[in-house]
């Protein structure tokens, strides 16, 4: 099944993601930036689809766009945002910002200069099997241990949240 990686789709989706990423930081209204973030995540899901990983794309949509972003919007709405809107947009640490930008620029240049040696010759060969089975085999096979620890961590987080909210009920 040839991946659907037509170049137009690729540039469109990655452009969309970068653009909405920029929007996230420039918008004054926090809800607008949250929406931009959702757009970025959906663009990312599209990219996954192009890499022929539908399972990851599906999970991305459900978890990120459907779950976490909804809770983001919850928080933004409950905290009244009049105050934050009036604050002046850019804070003082522009010096640190420039340094970080320069460092990033140097990194890009280096990677570009190194060029081919970093990347394998041809596009990676996609396995024939459906992506879901493959992930399942990896997740529950070789990386079973890591998977368990991650779920333990989540459990701790949930219990923490309950304890914090518990005091008030």
């Amino acid at each position: 099944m040839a991946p659907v990686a037509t170049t137009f789709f690729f540039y469109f989706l990655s452009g969309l993601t970068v653009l909405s990423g920029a929007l996230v930081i420039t918008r004054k209204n926090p809800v607008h930036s949250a929406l931009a973030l959702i757009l970025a995540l959906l663009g990312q899901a599209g990219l996954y689809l192009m890499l022929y990983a539908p399972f990851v794309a599906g999970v991305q949509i459900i978890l990120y766009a459907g779950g976490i972003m909804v809770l983001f919007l919850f928080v933004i709405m409950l905290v009244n945002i009049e105050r934050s809107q009036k604050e002046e947009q850019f804070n003082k640490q522009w010096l640190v910002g420039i340094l970080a930008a320069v460092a990033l620029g140097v990194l890009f240049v280096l990677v570009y200069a190194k060029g081919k040696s970093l990347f394998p010759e041809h596009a990676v060969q996609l396995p024939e099997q459906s992506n879901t089975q493959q992930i399942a085999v990896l997740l529950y096979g070789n990386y079973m241990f890591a998977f368990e620890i991650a779920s333990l961590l989540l459990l701790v987080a949930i219990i923490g949240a309950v304890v914090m909210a518990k005091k008030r009920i």
Partner: protein
Amino acid sequence: MTDATKSLSRLSSSNLELGEPDKTFLDTNELIINMGPQHPATHGVLRVILKLDGEKVLGTECVIGYLHRGVEKIAEHRTYAMFNPYVDRMDYVAAVSNGLGYCEAVEKLLNVEAPPRAKYIRVILTELNRLASHMLWLGTHALDIGAITPLFYTFRDREEILKIFEKYCGARLTTHAFRIGGCQYETYEGFERDVTKFVDFVKPKIDEYEELLTTNRIWVKRTKGVGVISDKDCIALGVTGPVLRASGVKWDLRKAQPYAAYSDFDFEIPTGQNGDTYDRYLVRMQEMRQSLRIIEQAVGKIPEGPIMAKVPKVLKPPVGEIYHSIEAPKGELGYFIVSDGSTQPYRVRVRPPSFVNLQALDMMVRGQLVADVIAVIGTLDIVLGEVDR
């Protein structure tokens, strides 16, 4: 949201200061919601200011008076007979019992006794009116909690009662059927047949309502344990009627201090145990059945005879004062009339059951959720015409 609370705090609601959220803990600030006078679920123009912490109700304050027409002031400028129609406009849902209370109070003042036939007709019409009032209550109360269907069933059956009223005295809702000293109209010739036909028609219908709601899991979950009030609090707060009986107090004026031929009928007084919305619902359903029993017995033995006692054209009751109360569908409805010997009453004070029952709202709702406030207002069965007078 903040501008809504700013406009509210200008209101001098003394016992409802906006508590500052304790900064020590991540606490959302307390919210004042204004269940406004035009809210669909407050039966009429009642405004309830709710102080909420999230969903829980911390305190309520009822702002009433939107429907105040100054009935008691008007009474002082009308003769006794002229004031009679005003009385129907107070509790417009149970107009007949208002009229009965007023006429009987003035008859006591004049020391006049209504003839037995008039008394029987009065009892039949009052009980029919109680049925209509309970049906309207059930329809709107179920609608507030979300069940749409009972409303149509109850209004279809209530229509039959209103037809009988219309045939008897020409008016459906504010009937003005009674005069001081007896009844105005003789019963039209098919009256007994209509009433018995109605009773047989409605008896299975009440079981139909029960079928719809009593064992409906969500209905039980929405009403059990909601708006609980104990019998001691009821008596202390002056709450009367089905609300009092649902808390376990077996007190009904028709039995305690019988008036207008109630003494010759046998009927029980249904009571509940734990005074929550579900018990009040059951008590009112039983009361409907008891009213049917009374009507059945009354229709069977309406005595012959005059329908109007010998009452002078112009009523000039002797100087003095009298307090007479009857069991209206909502509770004890009392009239305190002071007469100075002239044709116009010197002072008429109406003791409305809804006004006093509404006072218990704050205690019943504290600690419950917003959705329960609606359920409790529904179960108190208040009519704003009577609360504001």
